[in-house]
């Protein structure tokens, strides 16, 4: 146990003289030692493919095996003396006895450096996506509707893009199928079809808003705002009017819209301003809000 007690007995490193050609470390040995070169020259050699090549040379003061000793990460090349050399070997026992004499903060620094490195290395193989469902929906929203995509290839491509594990991808596909955003087809569900790319894009936007803790605009419309939306979807989309005329139009339809409400409607992007202070309905945004309301249960996942 590491205590930081400076009264512990320290085991010194073993000092050895080795002849040129002597193998001071072999990966097969399973030994976890730090080798410090005091004098001479050592080299890491690669004998794979039957050819001996020097990976790197070590000069006096250099050391090797720290990762092997502290993190059980063995060094993969044998180390040979290229000249008569003097080495010091820090064994596990020697290291442990030395560490016991260190102050706790120094041990913590060593531990933190090792742990940071290990986490960074592990992160190389992990996905950065936290919301894997959102990620899959974004990917699918750019695929064509009514086209069958072979499932294997679909999963492979998405895995390549995001590093999300194939098991997670399969789970997320099931979730999107349950929500009716994707359709599995063929024998043993061997292909995937996108129900509607726009719905998937709406789902991504909803997920983004939810992650930020925001209430998503399409799901907080008042009854009058919903009536405006429905009315707008049923009229001639090329119709242009100024703001007072639009307010009067909705009043005629018995929809209570005042100036403040008109300003709020602008924020939804249902009207696009034209030249000369007139506005016309913005078809894409109207369709977007209508689809969001129509598929609210699918989007919220409360089927």
């Amino acid at each position, binding site marked *: 146990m590491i205590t930081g007690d400076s009264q512990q007995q320290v085991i010194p490193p073993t000092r050895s003289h080795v002849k040129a050609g002597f193998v001071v470390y072999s990966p097969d040995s399973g030994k976890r030692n*730090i080798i410090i070169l005091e004098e001479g020259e050592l080299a890491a050699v690669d004998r794979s493919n039957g050819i001996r090549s020097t990976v790197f040379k070590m000069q006096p003061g250099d050391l090797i095996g720290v990762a092997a000793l502290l993190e059980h990460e063995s060094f993969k090349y044998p180390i040979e003396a290229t000249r008569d050399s003097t080495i010091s070997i820090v064994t596990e026992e020697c290291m442990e006895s030395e560490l016991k004499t260190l102050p706790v903060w*120094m041990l913590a620094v060593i531990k933190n450096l090792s742990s940071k490195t290990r986490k960074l290395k592990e992160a190389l193989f992990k996905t*950065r996506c936290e919301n894997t469902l959102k990620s899959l929906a974004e*990917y699918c929203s750019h695929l064509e509707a009514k086209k069958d995509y072979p499932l294997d290839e679909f999963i492979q491509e998405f895995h390549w*893009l995001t590093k999300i594990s194939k098991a997670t991808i399969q789970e997320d596909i099931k979730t999107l199928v349950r929500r009716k955003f994707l359709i599995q087809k063929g024998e043993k569900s061997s292909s995937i079809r996108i129900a509607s790319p726009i719905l998937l894009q709406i789902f991504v936007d909803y997920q983004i808003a939810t992650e930020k803790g925001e209430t998503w605009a399409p799901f907080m419309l008042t009854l009058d705002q919903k009536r405006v939306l429905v009315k707008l979807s049923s009229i001639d989309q090329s119709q242009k009017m100024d703001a007072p005329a639009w307010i009067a139009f909705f009043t005629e339809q018995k929809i209570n819209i005042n100036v403040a409400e008109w300003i709020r409607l602008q924020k939804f992007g249902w009207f696009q301003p034209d030249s000369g202070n007139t506005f016309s309905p913005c078809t894409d945004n109207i369709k977007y809000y209508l689809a969001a309301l129509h598929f609210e249960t699918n989007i919220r996942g409360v089927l």
Partner: protein
Amino acid sequence: MQIAVGEYLCLEGDKANSLYIVKSGMLVGFSKATEGAPLQNFGPGSIIGEFSLLESAAHELTLRAAEDTVIEVIEQGKLQSTLDKHPNWLRSILTFLTSRCHIAEENKKKSDMIQALPSLLYILSSHIQETGSDSMPLELLQKKVIALNNSPAEETDRLLASLQNLGLLKVSGEQDKVVRAESLQTIPLLYETLRYRALNQKVSPNILSMTEQMVLSTFVKIARDSNVPQHNGLCTITTEQLKAEAKKSMHGLTLTSRTIAPLVEKNLLEPSNAFDIHAPLEQVSFFFADFEKILDLLELNRIFPLLDKNLV
């Protein structure tokens, strides 16, 4: 050292040379790079600033006390005096661990950049194909890349700068920046080429050999010089013209049926009559090809070998 709740211990980027150990209370850390991400908490036992202590690195985070906090400060002098009491190899181990951590950080950054490229190209090529437009608002692109792969906006900006250096696209505008592709085909082609390599573990047929590129470049040169009008985007070059120009521009390479065969197989050059790899090239009177497709392929082959070097 005591820090009252709400007080700042240090600011990101400030010069530093000490280690902080939280004895009691709680510090929260944040940085510009991780804006919007959850705050990092440092409770009792946490240590902050190993690199400041070991190599006087600037503070990586702004630290604020979330409650009344007591910290112990270890200065570089204390580090030196501790190391002086121990064998030299301990110092070497610390140096080794520090540099190894920096290498791991660099590798992670490079890996993130390489990993983010396909996502960026996927979003850009999808946008080009969906809208038929060569431009996309930068903000929308960043939003979609984050949704797809969680690559931060700064990483997307760095990737775009690399792709701009390669002449693949341009980022323009002051406030509402726009990403404009130099060609409608090259970005989708590049994505498809990377995708093919990843899914099939082999080089895409879009990647041409040097000889194939030289033949196609010769074809393009003749087509441009001759001003022969194209029909439905197809241009026609006689075998005689091709051989004559090849002699001049292909550095002594003799054009034969065998040289042309891979391009015929890939349907990049269409022979006027039946093509036989063993017959003399002159048996084919002329070749025709989709001019724009060849230009895009040549552009792809110019960019592809430069990608990795430009990214990292």
